[in-house]
């Protein structure tokens, strides 16, 4: 009896410790980034593009990378939505009842979701070579679009599935076509679409491997789709590899910027999805 009680308590303590380790790793990471990044943070970082001699520690900031990342993640999210909203609607509205096809499609999107960004990057690079596009904002947006489509489709699919079946039946029984019914559903899932946008944007803004081959790097803010664009994660990566201390410091500060942006996006999306799930029940 005592042995069993001891065993119970032993594993209970172990579980608490494991939970602290898992949840605590978040604080450890964010804490490290803040601790190292805050001393190097200043206005120049987010308001200036790299000046002359930036990479040997002279003045400037990473505005080029911030704007580049916003362009890439924003462009990819918009393109991705144009594809994924129709796909999610088609799967749920037009294919409803054909369970085998629907399930197979869902598995394929899950698999696409699992494919690492380096493979999307390599594939995006192949497409660019094929069409003769050089490393540019356009190339980056295309590669990241491939990356975010599965995220968008999966999220939208989940959201559409929460819409009560009756709503569809009512619109159909009133003589609406499936397309008109879809418009009703779309209005219903608006907050869900916003969650999907945030998720995709967060993934797009933080990913390196997909833009490494495709977006290139530039010290200037791109003014057209055909110019190379810097991205924030790539800027962190390059600056961290520098032997100059100031440049490394800027990498920490850039990491701080990216962390804050991504945390805000994640918190917003989870708050939104919570509110949404409240509405739907």
């Amino acid at each position: 009896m005592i042995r069993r009680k001891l065993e119970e308590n032993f594993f209970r303590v172990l579980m608490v410790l494991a939970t602290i380790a898992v949840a605590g790793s978040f604080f450890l990471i964010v804490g490290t980034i803040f601790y190292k990044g805050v001393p190097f943070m200043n206005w120049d970082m987010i308001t200036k593009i790299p000046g002359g001699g930036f990479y040997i520690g002279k003045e400037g900031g990473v505005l080029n990378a911030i704007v580049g990342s916003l362009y890439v993640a924003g462009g990819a999210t918009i393109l991705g939505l144009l594809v994924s909203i129709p796909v999610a609607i088609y799967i749920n509205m037009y294919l409803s009842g054909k369970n085998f096809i629907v399930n197979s499609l869902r598995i394929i999107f899950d698999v696409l979701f699992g494919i690492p960004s380096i493979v999307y990057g390599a594939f995006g690079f192949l497409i660019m070579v094929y069409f003769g596009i050089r490393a540019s904002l356009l190339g980056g947006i295309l590669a990241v679009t491939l990356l975010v489509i599965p995220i968008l489709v999966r999220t939208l699919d989940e959201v559409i599935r929460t819409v009560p079946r009756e709503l569809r039946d009512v619109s159909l029984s009133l003589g609406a076509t499936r397309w008109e019914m879809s418009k009703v559903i779309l209005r219903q899932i608006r907050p869900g679409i916003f969650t999907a946008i945030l998720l995709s944007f967060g993934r797009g803004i933080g990913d390196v491997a997909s833009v490494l081959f495709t977006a290139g790097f530039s010290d200037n803010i791109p003014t057209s789709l055909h110019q190379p664009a810097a991205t924030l994660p790539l800027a962190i990566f390059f600056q961290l590899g520098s032997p100059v201390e100031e440049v490394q410091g800027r990498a920490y500060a850039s990491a701080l910027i990216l962390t804050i942006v991504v945390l805000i996006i994640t918190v917003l999306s989870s708050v939104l999805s919570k509110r949404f799930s409240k509405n739907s029940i």
Partner: protein
Amino acid sequence: MQSFRLIKDKIYSKLMLVLTLASVSIVILIGVGLYYKSIPVLHKLSWGTLLTSSQWKPLKGLFGFFPFIMGTLWVTAISIIIALPLCLLTSFYITEYASSRIRKILVPFVNLLSGIPPVIFGVWGVLFIIPLIQNNIAPHFVEFSTGYSVLAGGIVLAVMIFPLIVSIVCEVLNTIPKELKDASLALGATKWETIRKVSIRKASPGIIAAVVLAISRAFGETIAVLMVCGNNAVVPHSVFDPGYPLPALIANNYGEMLSIPMYESALMFAALLLFIIIFLFNIISRIILIRVERRLAA
């Protein structure tokens, strides 16, 4: 008017069908595209040579992927060995022990962790894990280590796959009927005994699926691993040796790729390899998970 609406519906239906087919066919296109690009290197060297040779001399046209495959396997194995016990214990705690208030505090942090970009994990690895290994862990075991090692890669990856494993295992544990656990508890078993003899047994397919998904995630992770692994093209023999996983190889050599003949083809072969393994692992785990879900519904 009536027919106009129907025609509109038809047109939209066809358009959506095209978009759906197009996005689904990305899977096939990636496979075919990468294979097509790997043909030159596959013509020159056989699959066997590519996979088992340790000769990596791009300038001489020798492409042996063995060190990189071993690098990937070491890093992945270390990450799973660290992450699996921690994540299982955490999932048990969240689903069986924690009060709903604690759960409400804990779960968001797991979500936040999953939102952190890979490059941030990499920076954290360089700033925190590398010095930790170099100064505090390695000196107890080996004479000298820079800290840049497969162990560092494994630890960083482990933290990256925490949220994935925890969320899937928690979901699976929640599908276990309460009656089963109640029966075990009513017979006098302690909570831990119930977990060990009922929950784990019932959840094992789901746990396996979670691990397979985590492995495929760890396989493909690029930038964080690239930053902490040391990137030395030799087969690692201890956890303190540097390694050079496949994704890091692809990412690191992009610049010189086009100047050396066959190099591009060899790197695309590396991407193809990753794609095939991850594709298979994903399919397997998704099918297991769907089975688990069905069993619940039945």
